[in-house]
């Protein structure tokens, strides 16, 4: 495994304000080894090493993917379906971080194999705490399946 080629976190977020607030919270938790995708298509290109990411090794998977559901081009549930449906990528932990409290989104996400489903709080302190805790849990506490 080449640690230099491997990012900690893939953040899939289209909303610029949410993106900035999330990055702010991650930075405060000293989590900065990450990649940003602004829509579902970018996220898939990165994960499956296509387009601008051709040549990247699919085994150099992020330690966790933070995924919004409502995304341009390819929506979050479709991204989740593709990642969890492919044997090469299905063991990558995916956390849905969304505004949607809709039961059908929650149910479908879990049926597709999501590892965690988090509703973004409106209150910034709580939002920041959630992002920090997520980062700490998935990057420091969780023991990942080694891609080698």
């Amino acid at each position, binding site marked *: 495994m080449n640690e230099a080629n491997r990012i900690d976190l893939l953040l899939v977020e289209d909303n610029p304000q949410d993106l900035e*607030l999330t990055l*702010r919270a991650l930075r405060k938790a000293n989590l900065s080894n990450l990649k940003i995708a602004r829509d579902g298509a970018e996220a898939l290109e990165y994960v499956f090493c296509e387009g601008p990411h051709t040549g990247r090794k699919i085994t150099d998977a992020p330690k966790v993917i933070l995924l919004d559901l409502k995304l341009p081009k390819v929506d979050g549930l479709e991204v989740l379906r593709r990642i969890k449906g492919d044997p090469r990528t299905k063991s990558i932990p995916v956390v849905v971080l969304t505004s*949607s409290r*809709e039961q059908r989104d929650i149910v479908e996400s879990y049926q597709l194999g999501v590892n965690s489903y988090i509703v973004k709080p409106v209150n*910034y302190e709580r939002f920041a705490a959630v992002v920090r805790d997520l980062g700490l849990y998935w990057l420091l506490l969780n023991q990942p399946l080694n891609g080698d």
Partner: protein
Amino acid sequence: MKTEDQLRASLKELGDLKAALDEHAIVAITDPQGRIRYVNDKFCAISKYTREELLGQDHRIINSGHHPKEFIRNLWSTIGRGKVWHGEIKNRAKDGTFYWVDTTLVPFLDEEGKPRQYVAIRADITERKRAEEQLEASTKEVRDLKAALDEHAIVAITDPQGRITYVNDKFCAISKYTREELLGQDHRIINSGHHPKEFIRNLWSTIGRGKVWHGEIKNRAKDGTFYWVDTTLVPFLDEQGKPRQYVAIRADITDRKRAEDALNEMNSELERKVADRTAQLEAANRELEAFSYSVSHDLRAPLRAIDGFSQAVIEDHGPLLPEEGQRHLQVIRSGAQRMGTLIDDLLTFARLSRQGLSRQPVNTGNLVRSVLAELGSPWTGRPVELRMDDLPSCRGDPVLLKQVWMNLLSNALKYTRKREQASIVISGIVEADELIFFVGDNGTGFDMRYADKLFGVFQRLHRVEDFEGSGVGLAIVQRIIQRHGGRVWAKAALGEGATFYFSLPSTPKS
């Protein structure tokens, strides 16, 4: 001598003939006045009179009274004129029984041509007469039945080729054809074209096999109008078992069919309407779902930005801001957060109408204890006196009922916050057909004049500065209880606390 021999031979022959006649027939001889001069044994036997009782009497002794005077008069006048009379006569025996005799009356004349005597030769035809009478009676019965049938039903008879050989008046009336137009035609003359070939084929094959066919047929009258007949087709077979003729008996069921058609039309109209309404409702539901999805997702994002960036300003540039500026940013933040809560509550409320109920037995006591624990009981920071009675178990959706208790108990805690000693009572009553639960407190209470606003969405009876809240909690309580088939109500006085009641049916309808 020869003449004497011949005479003797003739007499012998005559004697033989008479003996043969007596053997065969009922014989009587009367004089011109009608008095009986001779009867043979057969006459005595059939009339049951002895010879002595009969001789010297006239024929009135065996008169049955059956024949009209005219008949008797005609008889006497015929034989009075020296002519042979032949006919059938009903007589009465001594014992009162009747018998019929085929009778030939032969007058014998004297030299002046006047009747000298009458010879009556009779044959017993009682049996034949009885059979005739029976035949006539049953023929009459058949005639009566046919008349009754014609009165009641539409009748037609066809030959084996299907040509109409008989129709009654009712057939003509309903088909609007004259009898002349129908006879010799086959039934295609009234074919409506309504029935599939298969139907007609089945009909002919049934009666062709000698079986009765029964069904409902739509026919076409001469004027182009249609009529429905309930039809029974009965084949009558010849000695070889081949249909000899078909009798069709029909009843007019046009009105019934029309009513059925109207009913079917109404039913399908109703089904169409229901389908339309359902589609509309589903569309509205989908729209509502899309709406709340957008609310859920899109309305929260800007609020997060308002709150988050206000906080970012406070964190990054706090020291540069005057105190008033910092306070304003906090006001912006609390506004955004409050709107976040409102959206969440509103979505919860909207979801309640869509979500299905999962009814099951609920241990109310355990449910309430878990809610109290979630609300932080026992409360160490403030004095709360809590009295909880034994609560009857109920049937309902445990998740939704928990929401009800959560809202009512958190309200009780909220509105007693300013009391030195808060007092909360939780109790339940078992009524005949419902359970009544209530939560009472000694809190702020409210003015009963505004009680009707309590359960409305976004209706509040207190200022936000005094008691925070979105005004959706009691609306949620009411919606949940109503969906369980129960009621909610409250009693209160301003400054003296409030009691909130709700009922649940004890045998909920499924």
